[in-house]
């Protein structure tokens, strides 16, 4: 199987996973679950973005740039996570 095809299939699986997590989060689950769901959703988004950068945009050919992109993206997602936690009533 070609690398790009494998990347596409992984992206489909990750997209399905994040939507599935979201639907679980909307149920009336214990207080800690919404926070956990948000963390998983942001983690999956980071993984999808990294795959698109590495395989679709071919940054895998330039490992130093891919590392830099992954790091900056991770810091961005952590900032989003911080804001998400700040807005989550059950975070305390």
């Amino acid at each position, binding site marked *: 199987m070609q690398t790009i095809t494998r990347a596409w299939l992984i992206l489909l699986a990750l997209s399905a996973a994040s*939507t599935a997590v979201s639907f679980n989060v909307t149920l009336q689950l214990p207080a800690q679950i919404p926070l956990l769901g948000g963390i998983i959703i942001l983690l999956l988004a980071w993984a999808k973005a990294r795959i698109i950068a590495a395989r*679709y945009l071919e940054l895998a050919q330039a490992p130093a740039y891919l590392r830099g992109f992954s790091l900056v993206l991770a810091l961005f997602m952590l900032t989003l996570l911080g804001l998400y936690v700040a807005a989550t009533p059950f975070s305390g």
Partner: protein
Amino acid sequence: MTQTQTDQPFDQLPGDLMMWILIVSELLVFGAGLLAFMAVRVTDPAGFALAQDQLHRSAAGINTVVLVTSGYLAARAVGYANAGRIAATRWALLAAGGLGMVFLGIKFTEYAEKAALGIRPETHPFYTFYYLLTGFHAAHVIAGLVIFALLALRPTPRNLQVGAAFWHMVDLVWVLLFPVIYLLR
């Protein structure tokens, strides 16, 4: 001391440097928008959750699959162009563009539903960001479709790589917009 071409750091980047400058610029703009969205959400999480309940997560999830698949076809088009397979390149571009139109169809159906409910950008800060970010993204999808049409006319490997990179940027932005606007509770 002489310096060879490969010593230049930007030479390692695949594709055109100007396209990378555009990609980084666009990511910064959308990134700032998402940070602002999340920052405003802190002031009214319950209101944002209620507003978000009016969105169709399933439709947005389908749109993610549509766009990711379109990106895959665009990437395949680049491979076909590099192999000199012009007809296959055009078919892959046509399919990628077709999925781009499906994405827009679902998106504008969503907008029409919101309009029918009387939901406008000024209804709630959530919708201000929703319309601004997804609308700006949809404008990029339209631009991408125009680029696909131009690429189909002149499907050279270099044109394909640059044009597909723009589409992948659109893809990349969506996989960040989708979870933040539609999924985070």
